Structures are given as structure tokens and as C-alpha cells.
């Protein structure tokens, strides 16, 4: 266990200083600031637009960061051979996988926290600028703490994306891993539509495939509570638990699968 935590700590230290995520986080913050300007163009919808765009930016940048890190976890290490020195230490390959994954999740949460801070910053500015009469008409307060629930579920989503990227990178190159992970992410978001494919005019064979994919793949749509939270609708603790738990199981599946592949892999 200490070995796992030591690896996690090392990964965290290395990843948190990486430049690419900084750029992506910066870009997300920029988007949030820009959303403020955009909101001025659409009278009355400003708080909603800022909330919507901000969450979308955080989610999208988060996914990119997760993919970037996920493939760096294994594929990049294998390509650059830095994996040799770590694997020759007294750790099993499964400890390696779990430790790396944990370190990465911590890094992601740190990045997400920065984005959340910027998000609330922009909203606080809006809140300060808007007169009380208009604020009365808002469906939910600008600095609604419920928004944190949205961020929490984004974090859960990122944990899955990272696990996906890690899984693919145990057996394929960096580029292929990135492509496959993004593809699965997209499928995960269209999961609901996979089930109802036939009502969209697909042939019966395709609909059956769609339904199979729907059942087997993790469904990412429950993690997207943007619509509810932005409109001030409640997101129940039960929803959070169920969604997180279900995704958590998939993460476990991916980590075990990664270990299985990793254990028997030759590092040429």
C-alpha cells in the first residue's frame, strides 16, 4: 500500500508541473471570461449562459487533460523507457497501475479545482455587477453551491476517461490511445440515443448493436447535470451516489483489465 501511495505522490508531483494542462486550464478560464462577454449579447440569459459555458469548458478541458495524462501514464512512459527504472523496483505491475492512476486522479482534481475557482470568480463578478431587481428573476443564485455537484460529477467523469486512456495505453501507442479514448467518450454521451436508435430510423441490426453497446458501455449522460443545476433543480444525493457508484465499478473493471494486459506485456 505504501508503494502505491508513493507512486501516486510521485506521479502527482510530476504531472502537476506539466505545462500542457496549465495551458488547457488557462484556456478554460479564458472561455469562462469570454462567456461573460457573450452573455452581454443575449439579454436576460446571461447567468445561464455563463453557468452553461463555464461547466462545458471545464468539462471539455478536463477531458482533454485526462486523455493527455492518461496516455502519458503508460504509453508515453513505455515509448520513452522511463518505465524501466520504476518497474525494476519491488512493486507488482498492478501496484504500478493503481499508483499511477491515483496520482493522476489527484492531479485532475487539482486542475478541476482551479477551474472551479475561476468559474465562481466569474460568477461572483456577475453577481456583484447585477442589480438586485434582475437577480430576483434568476432561477438560481449566481454563486449557487449546487454547481459544485456538477463539478463533482465532472470529476467522476474524468476519472472514467482517465481509466479509459490508461487502459488503451497499456497496449497501444499514444496516438491510438487518445483516439480510442475520445471515441468511447463520445459514445458514452450518446448512450441514451444508442438505446433508442430504432426510433431514429436505423435498421434492426444496427439498433441491436446500438442496444448492446448501450448496456455494455458506461453511460455518461447521468453525469451531465448541467441542465438541472443551471435551472436550480435539485440533484439528489441518491443520483450522485448511483451515478458515481456505477462509474466507479467501470473504473475498477478498466483498472483490472489494464493490470491483466500489463502483467504479461513485454517491454521491448
Amino acid at each position, binding site marked *: 500500500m*505504501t*508503494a502505491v501511495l*508513493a*507512486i501516486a*505522490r*510521485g506521479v502527482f*508531483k*510530476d*504531472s502537476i*508541473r*506539466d505545462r500542457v494542462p496549465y495551458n488547457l486550464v488557462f484556456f478554460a478560464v479564458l472561455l469562462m471570461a469570454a462567456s461573460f462577454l457573450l452573455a452581454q449579447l443575449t439579454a436576460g440569459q446571461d447567468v445561464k449562459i455563463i453557468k452553461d459555458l463555464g461547466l462545458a469548458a471545464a468539462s471539455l478541458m478536463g477531458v482533454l487533460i485526462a486523455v493527455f495524462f492518461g496516455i502519458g501514464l503508460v504509453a508515453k512512459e513505455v515509448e*520513452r*523507457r*522511463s518505465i*524501466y*527504472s*520504476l*518497474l*525494476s*523496483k*519491488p*512493486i*507488482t505491475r498492478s501496484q504500478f497501475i493503481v499508483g499511477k492512476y491515483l496520482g493522476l486522479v489527484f492531479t485532475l482534481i487539482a486542475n478541476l479545482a482551479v477551474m472551479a475557482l475561476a468559474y465562481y470568480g466569474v460568477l461572483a463578478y456577475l453577481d456583484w455587477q447585477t442589480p438586485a431587481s434582475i437577480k430576483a428573476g434568476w432561477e438560481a443564485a449566481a454563486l449557487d453551491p449546487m454547481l459544485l455537484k456538477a463539478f463533482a460529477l465532472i470529476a467522476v467523469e474524468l476519472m472514467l476517461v482517465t481509466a479509459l486512456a490508461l487502459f488503451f495505453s497499456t497496449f497501444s501507442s499514444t496516438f491510438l490511445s487518445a483516439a480510442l479514448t475520445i471515441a468511447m467518450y463520445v459514445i458514452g454521451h450518446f448512450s441514451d440515443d444508442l438505446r433508442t436508435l430504432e426510433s431514429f430510423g436505423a435498421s434492426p441490426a444496427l439498433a441491436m448493436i446500438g442496444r448492446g453497446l448501450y448496456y455494455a458501455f458506461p453511460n455518461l449522460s447521468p453525469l451531465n447535470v448541467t441542465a438541472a443545476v443551471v435551472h436550480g433543480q435539485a440533484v439528489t444525493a441518491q443520483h450522485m451516489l448511483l451515478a458515481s457508484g456505477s462509474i466507479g465499478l467501470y473504473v475498477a473493471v478498466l483498472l483490472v483489465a489494464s493490470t491483466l494486459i500489463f502483467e*504479461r506485456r*513485454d*517491454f*521491448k
Partner: protein
Amino acid sequence: MDAIRTEGLTKHYTKGFWRSRPYAALEDLTLHVGQGEVFGFLGPNGAGKTTTLKLLMQLIFPTSGRAEILGRPVGDVSVRRRIGYLPENPYFYDNLTAEELLIYFARVFGYSAQDGRARASRLLDEVGIGSERRFQLRKFSKGMIQRVGIAQALVNDPEVVFFDEPMSGLDPIGRREVRELILRLRDKGCAVFFSSHVLSDAEALCSRVAVVVKGRLTATGRLSDLLANRARAWELVVSSVSQPVIDRIAPRLTGVTVLGEGRFSLELPLTVAPEQLLAELVATGARLVSLNPVRETLEDFFVQQVRATDEAGIVRERTAS
């Protein structure tokens, strides 16, 4: 108990798009290294040296055969507590500093943070990294990374260390320092298994060597046993000799090198008694500069092993396994 022991260790890859052509990276390697021994694992590029090291570190899995380290099979995770490994062309984590890397590895071993810091400090001193230890590894030159690599291999005070091309990237001063370090390790009772194609290092350090060519072990044993410990010729360097004198004795020599200004280096076959020839030359007014037996060097031996393998027509790719 041997420090390292392999029996019939073999690694075959399949090459080609449809994975149809088997390729023997290593074939039937059997050797042993005693505790406290410095063992040189020599061979030309592509001979299978790195493959062997990776098999010993279980970075790759053998096709057949076994290997043991300190009496435990190579797959045993616990034995890795007592060994250290320096990979070829090492690469670590760009954003960590040298210090942080060593502390990281120390903690993976289970040492406390404090202990890790102490070890890191000591090891970085030992490999000659000074204030640069606070810089991130991305800023390090190849030679400095090599030193860090050696340091990380020693974090746990290992009983056996495996070095893959330890001198690579180092300047002459660095190489001397590493040589001294290896000798210090030996003196501490640590077995050192290092692969190299730089023979002078092996000659200076190793008690025993193995030579692999094209994936096969061609020779192994004590250096003194492998190299004919008899002179194969004499080298006589004389001065104040004139050319006509040299021409007169030339038929008895196997080689003459003109060093200039009346100095010559003469190579005498074993059949010629050097004392007698020297007496003749002194009688003509020559002066002795040096007289040395010429022993077979490791380089000669090495080249001869490689050539023998070529002539034996050993082929690594087989059409049928």
C-alpha cells in the same frame, strides 16, 4: 548461493507483419555470477545484452529457461528490494528534480521521507551531482542523467546491481569516477553485473566476463583464463639505431615500426630470444628503451569471438521454430 544464475535462458520474438518470422534475441544462455563479483557482460551491438538484462529484471518474459537472483526466481517481487538496475539510455520524469526523483524511489522502497532525503543527498554526492540536484531533470545533460541513473540504482543499498552500459554519455573523468564507484561497490560485497561494449572498462574492472555474439554465449570465465596468459610476442623498443642495422635483422622480426629519430619498435616472435637480439643491437651502439611481452588483449579475444561466430554461419532468424 550465487548472486545471479541463468539456465538455458532463451527469448524468441516474432517479427514481420503477420508475426511469422521468429527471431532469436537470446539463445540458451547459461551463466552464473558469484556474490561480490564484478562481472562483465560483453558483446557487439545487438548481441542480446540488453535483452538479457531485461529478462533478469522481468521487463520481458523468457520463451524458455530460468533465471535466479540471490537464489530466488526472477519473478519474485521481494528480491527486487535487494537489487539495483540502471537501464540503457535512461530517461526519468522531466518535471521532477534529481533530488525528488531519488526520494520518490526511496519511498517506493518503503523508506521514510527523512531516510529518503538522507539517501538522496549521499548518493548524489557520490555520483558527483552538486547544486544541480535542485534543477528539474528536463534540464540535465545526458551525462548528468546517467549519473542520476546510477544513483537511483543504489538507493536501496543493493546486494546486486545491474548496469546496462554504465559509461554511456560520460566524459573521461566521469568514466573514471564510475569505475571507482564500481570498485567501491565490489569492496562492499555488492555483485556488479554490467554490460558494455567498451572493453577497456571490462579489462580494468572485471574478475569474470561473458561474451555474447548474435544471441549466443561464446565464452565465459575469468579474464586471466580467457586471455592467453602467455606472451604471444615481444615488443622491443630501441633507440640510436640506424636503418641498415634494422634491415639486417628484419628477417627475424614479425614487425617493425619506425618511431622516428633512430627509434624503432620491433616485434619479435616467441622463437627469437629477445635478450640475444638486444645484445646484438647494443653491440652496434643501440640503446634499450623498453622490452615488454605482448599479451593478447581483450579486444583481440573479442574480435576473434565475433569472427568465429560469423564463420560458423550462425543465423538468428529461423524459418521454422
